[in-house]
């Protein structure tokens, strides 16, 4: 008897993990089948419902949330579905056939990879905003950081995004530049303080917001979305300018709508919304 001990346990874990009560859901589903056909007809009478799927870098979470709503308001019947993650993760998902219509990346590298793979037409991607880096600290600034050089203070807890994430890569480029100003081993000292390489920029911001980390290097736009944070500016000569490209995808099932969305992001209205969320518009 005891041999089967693990079986009901595994089964119950599986069922609860799915959050599904198996028997009750089966019956109504079967009952609904005949009613589906008649209700589907009148829907086509109103403006054809369309769904536009936009894959966007994590840093665009708030700005694109608002742009998506504005685009829906300007185009009745259109639903914008947004998927936010690190640009590299989105790029892999697109390569593996995720049904995306538009890709907005935080780095040119990920977009170039898609162009090479013919998932984006050459010369179509356009830079739609620029962003730059800033050092953030929790509101109470537990490590009492005041200037950039303090990032090298031994023992502070610094959070970056992983090197594979655009902002993590930009941060390391900025540290390279700082070596010139603060001494050749500055970058190594700072990297020795890194306690975590987060999988996207918003996770890095969250760790600082929670007060778990003493500092993080993120985008200026992230500070606007989290105004309680303290920050240290990085001067232009030490900063790295992130250029965000956007493009419709060649495999999009709604090519017209995708092009229209890109156009909207680059329009005065779209650019104003991006500026509102702390990004530097390109137009």
């Amino acid at each position, binding site marked *: *008897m*005891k*041999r089967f*001990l*693990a079986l009901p*346990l*595994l089964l119950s*874990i599986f069922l*609860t*993990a799915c959050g599904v009560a198996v028997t009750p859901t089966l019956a109504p589903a079967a009952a609904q089948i005949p009613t589906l056909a008649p209700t589907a007809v009148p829907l086509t009478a109103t403006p054809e419902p369309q769904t536009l799927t936009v894959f966007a870098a994590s840093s665009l979470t708030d700005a694109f949330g608002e742009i998506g709503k504005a685009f829906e308001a300007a185009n009745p019947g259109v639903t914008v579905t947004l998927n936010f993650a*690190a640009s*590299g*993760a989105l790029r*892999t998902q697109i*390569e*593996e056939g995720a049904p995306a219509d538009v890709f907005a990346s935080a780095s040119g590298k990920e977009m170039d990879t898609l162009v090479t793979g013919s998932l984006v037409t050459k010369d179509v991607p356009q830079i739609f905003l620029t962003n730059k880096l800033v050092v953030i600290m929790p509101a109470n600034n*537990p490590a009492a950081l005041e200037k950039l050089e303090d990032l090298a203070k031994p023992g502070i*807890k610094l*959070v970056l995004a*992983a090197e*594979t*994430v655009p902002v993590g890569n930009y941060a390391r480029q900025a540290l390279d530049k700082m070596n010139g100003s603060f001494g050749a081993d500055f970058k190594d000292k700072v990297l020795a303080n*890194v*306690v*975590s*390489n*987060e*999988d996207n920029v918003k*996770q890095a911001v969250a*760790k600082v917001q*929670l*007060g*778990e*980390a003493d500092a993080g290097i993120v985008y200026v736009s992230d500070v606007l979305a989290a105004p309680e944070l303290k920050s240290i500016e990085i001067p232009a000569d030490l900063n790295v300018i992130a250029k965000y490209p956007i493009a419709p995808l060649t495999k999009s099932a709604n090519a017209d709508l995708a092009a229209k969305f890109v156009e909207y992001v680059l329009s005065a209205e779209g650019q104003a919304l991006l500026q509102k969320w702390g990004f530097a518009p390109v137009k």
Partner: protein
Amino acid sequence: MTKIRISFNRLLDEEYSKLIFFIPSVILLAIFALPLIALVLRSINSEFFNNAFSEQAFKALRLSLVTSSITTVLAFIFGTPLAYILARWKIKGKSWLEILLDLPIVLPPSVAGLALLMAFGRRGLFGSTLTLFGISLPFTTAAVVLAQIFVAAPLYIRSARIGFSEIDSQFEEAALLEGANQWQLFYEVMAPLARRALVSGAILTWTRSLGEFGATILFAGNLEGVTQTMPMAIYLGFERNLGVALALSMVLIFASVLLLMLTKKIEKHRQD
């Protein structure tokens, strides 16, 4: 009604009635097997060995094996007495304790990670006290283990509890009549009788902590050699290059199969 049922049953001769068991089993097995087969096929390419035997992969695998082993040992040391109490002693509020212990099994790991941060984070309920003693848990290997214990130890406790409670109470009575104290009763009678439940519970906890991801990334972060376990390295590999993620997945699957085979063998050996 009865007539129909009888004729239906006649339709099912010996061969057909077997299909009732066979077809659902095959469908379910396919759901488990096909993704793994696809993963293996996709990961076979010229870059495989470079990706699979990188230093990062080695560090992540070592950290995963060390932390999940520690978690399993701790679950055994602390979970066995708890399971024993829950199964054999008469205490008040037992069902509430059982709900508390089942909760981490059903909660999404992200909730577990948040809860751990709220409790043991620097600004957490107890984290601020820990800070006074110079202890800071987030971003440490200890945090990885704590996250794994929170998520995976309840599996062991549950299995052990069921194992202990299935033992016929006449064994207990006989041992007590012979003058055994509580420890002798446990060590010489109850634990050997519940052995299989304990072993299978430990395997469940071990494999679950090997795959722990959600609570770890929230509570412990991601740093190579310190908190970057295999699931984390796989997730970040996905961002860099699919080949890395695939190769690391293969390494983890291979290691898991190997260790599961080993534990199965131990289990069988003990039974014989």
